[in-house]
């Protein structure tokens, strides 16, 4: 058993109630968030892939892949995520270049928006007969 695996298995067993274990903190990073995972150095970096499915739509996160550099990441993304004509444009972003909000900040980040109902058009009453609003 390699040293690396031993370590990671040890961590899996770590109690991590409340708050985040070191491992969780890192794993947070994934799914469009920062951080090369694990300590393995031999593998190529992780890239997050965003695809514009059709003209008029924005790029959407579709998944991730490994590639040694941006050129290959882009080509791998083409082969992996658009085999069935799923896209007209691709972005690849190094996972390590993404800064994400942390779970502890989640409420501070997002809850304040919850009471600002006036930002949504459904907040407003439209007088009967008023069209094109």
């Amino acid at each position: 058993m390699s040293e690396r695996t031993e370590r990671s298995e040890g961590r899996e067993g770590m109690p991590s109630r409340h708050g985040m274990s070191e491992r969780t903190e890192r794993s947070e990073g994934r799914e469009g968030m920062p951080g090369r995972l694990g300590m393995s150095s031999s593998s190529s970096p992780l890239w997050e892939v965003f695809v514009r499915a059709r003209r008029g739509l924005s790029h959407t996160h579709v998944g991730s892949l490994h590639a040694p550099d941006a050129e290959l990441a882009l080509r791998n993304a083409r082969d992996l995520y658009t085999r069935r004509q799923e896209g007209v444009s691709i972005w690849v972003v190094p996972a390590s270049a993404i800064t994400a909000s942390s779970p502890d900040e989640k409420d501070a980040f997002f809850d304040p928006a919850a009471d600002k109902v006036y930002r949504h058009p459904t907040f407003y009453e439209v007088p009967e007969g008023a069209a094109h609003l």
Partner: protein
Amino acid sequence: MSRFDFTLAVGDDALIAAQRLGEWTSRAPEMEEDIALANIALDQLGAARLLLTYAGELEGAGRDEDDLAYLRDDREFRNCLLVELPNGDFGVTMAKLFFLAAYQVPLYSALAGCADERLAAVGAKARKESAYHLDHAALWVKRLGDGTEESHRRMQDAVDQVWPYVHELFAPDPAAPVDPSTLRADFDATVSAVLDEATLTRPETGWAPGGGRDGLHTEHLSYLLAEMQVLHRAHPGASW
């Protein structure tokens, strides 16, 4: 070369290239690369099917793509020797693909503008695919050439080993829908630029084996066909 022979030759190139690339399935250096090689194999196979179907129609003897692929012997195949060479390591495969694509891009582009509508349609479709193959192979030739000491040595060996087989591709044939000798300048320019960037040396031209277009192949082709055709030939007349 008649239109039939020419179509058959271009189609056989694509078919045998696809067969060799398909051998990489589940063996590529990275899983991502496995997918890329399969994509290129599928492109080549798609072009082969269109070309062999058309060749069968030109011949007018009722042979379809499968009759031509599965029921000819090696002496009847018209592909270049380059595509039938064994895959070797990943460097050899990339050298083969790079040289093939650097030839196919100008070939298909020229075909796209030729008078034969069917060949023009194949050319228009396949030149985009070949451009991608060329791009992919060039990326790897550069990475292997300018990567580690070992990869540089292996890539240079691969280029040296495969280089003699490129000359056959450009044998003059003024009667063909596209005279292959007219493609050489384009090919040389592509190759020089990429090899330079890859810190690789273009080999001197010396030994120049040929014969594929006349059905005189290397010893490898017969084995390749034995494997490819075994099942089809074991059940004469069956549908699949």
